[in-house]
């Protein structure tokens, strides 16, 4: 690690201008952040980092930015997942990591992916609404998504039959490496023959 110190210093300097009160952050807080994130099992929110390191949330965000910059070109990356920060390996080195350690991964069927896409963009959404868009019964893919905890129930709609509404979970964001549903690809980015894109069908920020 010692050969990294000069680089850390220079990055630290570079980010100093962006932060409100740079002198309040000792350099070792950056190392502390790295240590904490290394051991964190779940993504840590800026507020959590601030509490752990005894700094302000603004400083925590700035430190995270510095760490992310230091990880450029390294095997690790600092990702924003589900509203928090997480240290993870870069996808290009995944095949090597997989030789060492293979966590359980699952692949979703096309039906499940279609159903999940509809839930993600139209949440909260009911089963009949999903069926109407897909043109087929979606019971089975919905059950799969519920079992993988990619979606969860979100109350009942005040409509005939009071159908259950579904929305996506933090697990969903983690599975697709998303910070929030606002990071989903734009729904109306389609060929020109689509002139009547519904503006309200954008994921809620």
């Amino acid at each position, binding site marked *: 690690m010692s050969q990294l110190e000069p680089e850390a210093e220079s990055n630290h300097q570079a980010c100093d201008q962006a932060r409100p009160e740079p002198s309040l952050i000792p350099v070792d807080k950056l190392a502390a952040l790295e240590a904490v994130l290394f051991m964190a099992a779940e993504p840590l929110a800026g507020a959590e980092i601030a509490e752990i390191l005894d700094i302000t949330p603004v400083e925590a965000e700035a430190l995270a930015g510095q760490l992310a910059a230091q990880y450029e070109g390294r095997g690790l990356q600092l990702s924003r997942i589900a509203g928090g920060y*997480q240290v993870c*390996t870069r996808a290009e080195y995944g095949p090597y990591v997989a030789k060492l350690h293979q966590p359980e991964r699952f692949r979703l069927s096309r039906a499940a992916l279609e159903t999940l896409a509809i839930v993600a963009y139209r949440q909260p959404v009911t089963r009949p609404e999903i069926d109407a868009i897909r043109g*087929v019964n979606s019971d089975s893919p919905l059950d799969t998504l519920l*079992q993988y*905890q990619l979606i969860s129930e979100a109350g009942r709609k005040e409509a005939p039959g009071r159908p259950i509404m579904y929305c996506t979970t933090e*697990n969903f964001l983690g599975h697709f490496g998303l910070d929030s549903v606002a990071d989903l690809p734009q729904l109306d980015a389609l060929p020109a023959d689509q002139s009547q894109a519904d503006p309200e069908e954008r994921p809620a920020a």
Partner: protein
Amino acid sequence: MIAPEITAQSTAAHLTAPPDRVFTGHPVRLPLFEGPLDLLLYLIEREEIVIFDIPIEHITSQYLEYLASLESLNIEVAGEFLVMAAQLLEIKSRMLLPQDQRPEEDEEEAGDPRAALVARLMEYRRYKAVAEELRARAELQRFVFSRGELTNGNGHHDQAYLMLNEVSTFDLWAAFQSLLSRARETPTGEVVRPRFTVAQKMAAIAARVRWCEDGIRFLDLFDEQATLIELIVTFLALLELIRLRRVRVAQQRLLGEIRVYPVKASEEACPAGE
């Protein structure tokens, strides 16, 4: 996603699709579709048709041909496919009517009978495209690892989810059998053998008899719950007490009740049990 196919041949046997979308349970390869909209979109793309101007008659015949090929293979066709077939035929019949004679109960469909179908197709196509993007994202994310997975995803600590559909009824049966066999095992543990000594029983009998001038029943000396060994030890103790002249036993009449009496120090001279 779908291999572009420009051939004009339309028999179902010529329908092609990437291998992962082909139903392989039968010798004939047929593309599988998620639903009637998926199938229609496939036909439209294959025929390079503009979605806003679908030649409904052509598409309907293609659609029905596909369903017929499924049925010829004894593949059960989902009800949704049949509903769509009926809708296509209805649109087709409306298209045949002159503009001014079309039924106008539906204001929305007063114009083009195909409008509602086109809107549904386009909406479905949007989500289908996004689903494909999500799939690509997930594929990339498969190779991103974090330390949290060491405790969560690796199944060593808490299992995050339980896939019931991956458990067969045989698994459940086997699990239950092992549960039953475990329940049948006799609980193991140290069995403590009750220990009685003649001396203990002598002391116990002497204490019970001591203040009973009228004596106590012979049978009362023996606990009903007592084990065989306890009964024997008690009887030996009684015999020993009699030998030592600490108690005496008496029977008032032939085959009558035997009673045990204390022996006072003064009475010691008297012989026990006449």
